[in-house]
């Protein structure tokens, strides 16, 4: 156990007890804690038991679940609560919705974010709408998670970041952790929340480490946070682009530009206040998003800023996004596809008229 000297939680968190952890480890620990906290919480997903011994029928946990996110849990909680599902996303997401409607709190591992489309009908037409169309009689305390993002050579069908499609859906909540601290607080909040919540987890974060307080905490859904304070320009990140923004801010600091970095953490609901507050101070804003640009979160944040902070702006709102294209396989093309710190730095320099 260590105590934080400086940590991303900012002023007030110095001296808090905690430790440096990998994103994937705190993810699993949080799942475990939530399952211990509430017997109605259970997990389902493909390969979550990692195979079974033919003779004993015991789970083997060969993979530790997809991305090793659930390693050890099947031994701890058994195959009823760590429920291995056949490759039937529409079926088991629908079953999770049905189970949530009838008193359980299912958590679904959808493996790659791209596979959400196989189950989209259940998510959109059932999970998100049941409470509303049934006149508030019921609720859907369902949590789903999956891995997004390019940069790992998985090509077009395993690299999506289209969380904007989910944020578009009334009735569904969407959160995007960007470090070990935020995944602990957001995953716990998602599981305890009574609405369906989708947690999108960029693959590039899985092995990153960061400071995590020991104490039990939740991060309120719909709140962003400051990762860095600055006076000249606001960089808005979400998921892995919050890391990109921090790298860009460091590079900008070297050339005398003082950037503020906001990590949105939640995409629906999202924190309008933090956007407006920061832009009112810096008067310049660049939004960085790995999702494709049309009808994206970047566009949504830009619209809110244009609407509610227009008078504070010294320059147009800028977005740094992926191109309007699928994700290519070749790694050089893939790097070109993803927003890089250099793209952010270039955009800021243009914005502030610096060369």
């Amino acid at each position, binding site marked *: 156990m260590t105590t934080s000297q400086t940590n991303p939680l900012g002023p007030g968190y110095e001296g808090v007890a905690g430790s440096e952890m990998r994103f994937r480890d705190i993810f699993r620990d949080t799942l475990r804690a939530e399952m211990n906290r509430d017997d109605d919480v259970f997990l389902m997903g493909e390969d979550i038991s990692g*195979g079974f011994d033919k003779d004993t029928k015991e789970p083997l946990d060969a993979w530790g679940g997809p991305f090793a996110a659930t390693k050890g849990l099947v031994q701890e909680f058994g195959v009823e609560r760590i429920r*291995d599902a056949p490759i039937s996303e529409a079926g088991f997401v629908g079953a999770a919705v049905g189970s949530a409607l009838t008193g359980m709190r299912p958590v679904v591992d959808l493996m790659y974010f791209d596979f959400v489309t196989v189950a989209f009908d259940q998510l959109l037409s059932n999970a998100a709408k049941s409470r509303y169309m049934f006149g508030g009689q019921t609720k859907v305390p369902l949590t789903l998670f999956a891995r997004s993002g390019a940069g790992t050579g998985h090509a077009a069908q395993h690299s999506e970041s289209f969380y904007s499609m989910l944020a578009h859906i009334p009735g569904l909540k969407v959160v995007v952790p960007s470090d070990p601290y935020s995944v602990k607080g957001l995953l716990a909040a998602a599981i305890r929340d009574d609405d369906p919540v989708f947690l999108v987890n960029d693959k590039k974060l899985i092995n990153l480490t960061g400071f995590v307080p020991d104490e039990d905490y939740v991060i309120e859904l719909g709140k962003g946070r400051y990762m860095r304070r600055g006076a000249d320009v606001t960089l808005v990140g979400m998921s892995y682009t919050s890391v990109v923004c921090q790298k860009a801010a460091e590079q900008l600091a070297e050339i005398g530009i003082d950037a503020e970095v906001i990590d949105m953490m939640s995409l629906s609901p999202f924190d309008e206040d933090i956007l407006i507050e920061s832009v009112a101070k810096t008067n310049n804003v660049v939004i960085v998003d790995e999702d494709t640009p049309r009808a994206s979160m970047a566009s949504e944040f830009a619209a809110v800023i244009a609407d509610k902070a227009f008078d504070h702006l010294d320059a147009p709102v800028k977005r740094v996004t992926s191109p309007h294209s699928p994700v*290519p396989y070749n790694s050089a093309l893939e790097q070109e596809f993803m927003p890089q710190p250099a793209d952010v730095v270039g955009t800021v320099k243009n914005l502030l008229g610096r060369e």
Partner: protein
Amino acid sequence: MDISKEKLEWIYTTMYRIRRFEETMLEQTLKGNSMGVAHTSDGQEAPPTGICAHLTDKDWIGSTHRGHGHCISKGLETDKMMAEVFGKATGQCGGKGGSMHISDFSKGMLGANGIVGASIPLAVGAALTAKLKGIENESVGVSFFGDGASSQGVLHEAMNLASVWKLPVIFACENNGYAEATPSWYAVSAEDIASRAEGYGMPGVVVDGMDVFAVYDAAGEAIARARAGEGPTFIEMKTYRYHGHFHADDTSKYRKPEEEEYYKNLDAIKHFERTVLKQKLMTEKKLKSIRDDIEKEMLHAVEFALSSPMPDISTLYDDVYVNYSNPIAGLR
């Protein structure tokens, strides 16, 4: 045996080419020469070979994430396949698709597919085209998919469609016993996946997927039925993948060595060699010369892929649409 000498040579060449392509590709991937994720199909040579032996470039196949064997059986060139895995401009998709998306529309290959089950209805659609154009006799659709994919709703919808519309389709299920680490005895509720065919009003047959002659015979019958306008058939082939689910997977965590041994004893290539030598259909000399040619071909494929150029960065923005009036390049 009622297979021509040329066909036998083609079958051996194709199976050996698949085997050596996968082994070579895996070796290159572990060396770091591939740009991403790759799934091998060595061990599973008989199903695509025995089926595609009956097809021409006018027939269509849909493939999976484990698609190299399907590609090779449909006549794709190993140079361009290897170059695609290496992410090169000379690759089958210009380096933009990779191992999981190799395709060749000039050869009737609808593409490897990364979404489990997603290619199944594509082959049904190709068969629909054939029916609409009145060319069922020369253009059938074959859907390759695994035991894991058989749990996807889309297979069941596609089977019913193909039956209702009486389309020239072969549902070619490669049951290798596993979906990732999950055994099919756990995830599939039927002893034989082919038994599901009955409920959709089509014949379902189970064949030994380590025996290319058995696959060849079953496929011959099914494809003849399809070409004659008699509708779809389901063929389940029990087979085995020798390597991990993907290049970095360690099978010892979920498969027993005895089981792996058992299937290696049934090896499709060895079985073919024993059979043709015993029946004096091919000579050891001929078999060896085929193998030697393939070894040379593999050296060439690696050389070609290594020495090929990277795609130009501007190709990132090509082919999102045929025609689109806004800039694609994003907002930087």
